[in-house]
């Protein structure tokens, strides 16, 4: 599987000898293009058009994050899998309120079930999350009865609310209390971690969408607008609990991230570079780990799992097989 390149240092990335070349003050290094799937940029990087042309040919997506670690945007190379057919099917399902709701519900249901799975695990490990677990179980059934997107969104918000309240119990560390979900900017350590993880998750989903015929601009749960990609946000909902949140729990549990990993800046809290690196490293490791897939009967990595989800989407849109969100069983 092609690797993701994470660039934290400052330097120049260029095309040289038909491959990628990264030069910093400390040294120079060639990166095999054929083994590069996407590049995430956190440092101050100099890029020229020649490189972008090359990346476009090689179909490598660039994701930019700013100094504070927030997602800034992507260099999304020209579509290479052009399927007008798929775009039409996608739009068709978006415009028809009923059909859109079917897909949106499945995303919420998938997310809720995965959340339940995470809580169940901790419940089994004698963490006191029974109340939240119960509340969420009671909210899963009403998903079916939602009549429109806004009530569905509200329901999803409720589920997340209960879920996040279980975090304090799971983490069990007074430095990392949840309080409430704050964003732009996150106001405490735990929120900072969640935001950072989620934004990485969105870009990973976007990169996977790029490898399929789907158009990231047409999402179902998140309404399509003029500004941003939305399908990746929908897709990330399903995987956030089982990938990002679990990663956060294990990083905190192993004390790989402590309160010393953060800087307080105006209006918010920021992760130090070392902490960011640690997070990214472990996320990358996690995405590479394989699990045995029940339907396919062979091991697949977490990253592959995301792509499989998109293939299921495609099948649904083409009317071949109804989409059912992935639910973790462990």
């Amino acid at each position, binding site marked *: *599987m092609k*690797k*993701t*390149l*994470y*660039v*934290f*240092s400052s330097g120049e990335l260029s095309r040289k*000898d*038909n*491959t990628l070349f*990264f030069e910093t003050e400390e040294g120079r*290094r*060639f*990166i*095999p*293009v*054929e*083994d590069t799937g996407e590049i995430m940029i956190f440092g101050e990087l100099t890029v020229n058009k020649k490189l972008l042309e090359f990346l476009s040919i090689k179909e490598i997506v660039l994701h930019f994050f700013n100094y504070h670690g927030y997602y800034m945007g992507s260099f999304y190379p020209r579509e290479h899998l052009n399927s007008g057919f798929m775009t039409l099917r996608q739009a068709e399902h978006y415009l028809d309120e009923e059909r859109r709701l079917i897909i949106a519900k499945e995303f919420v249901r998938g997310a809720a079930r995965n959340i339940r799975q995470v809580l169940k695990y901790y419940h089994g490990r004698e963490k006191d999350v029974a109340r939240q677990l119960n509340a969420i179980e009671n909210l899963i059934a009403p998903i079916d009865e939602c009549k429109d997107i806004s009530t569905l969104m509200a329901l999803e918000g409720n589920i997340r609310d209960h879920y996040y309240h279980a975090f304090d119990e799971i983490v069990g560390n007074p430095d990392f209390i949840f309080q409430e979900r704050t964003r732009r900017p996150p106001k405490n350590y735990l929120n900072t971690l969640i935001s950072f993880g989620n934004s990485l998750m969105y870009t990973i989903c976007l990169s996977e969408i790029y490898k399929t015929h789907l158009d990231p601009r047409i999402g179902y749960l998140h309404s399509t607008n003029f500004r941003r990609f939305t399908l990746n946000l929908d897709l990330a909902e399903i995987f956030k609990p089982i990938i990002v949140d679990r990663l956060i729990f294990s990083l905190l549990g192993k004390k790989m991230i402590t309160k010393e990993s953060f800087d307080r800046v105006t209006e918010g809290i920021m992760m130090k570079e070392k902490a960011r*690196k640690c997070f*990214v*490293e472990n996320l*990358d490791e996690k995405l590479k780990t394989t699990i045995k897939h029940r339907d396919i009967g062979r091991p697949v990595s977490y990253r592959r799992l995301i792509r499989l989800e998109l293939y299921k989407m495609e099948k649904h849109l083409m009317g071949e097989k109804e989409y059912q969100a992935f639910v973790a069983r462990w």
Partner: protein
Amino acid sequence: MFVILVYDVGQKRVAKVLKKCRQYLNWVQNAVLEGEVSDANLKKLKMELERIIHKDEDSVIFYSLRTTKYSSREIMGLKKGGDENII
């Protein structure tokens, strides 16, 4: 598949071979590269190298491992090339 590639080619073709290999593998030290490649890419690399080298003078050796689980890697002295994906 994990591949270790070593080459010993005529001086004129060293640069050509190196440039080609760098597109697919990580350079680790003079005339040695290693890295993860797909079956298709390995075939591609082999074909492209065949076009560059002179079969009666040069030699390129591929060591391929299905998994690196049963191998270990240790470096004595300087670490010359890198394979990190977080830089």
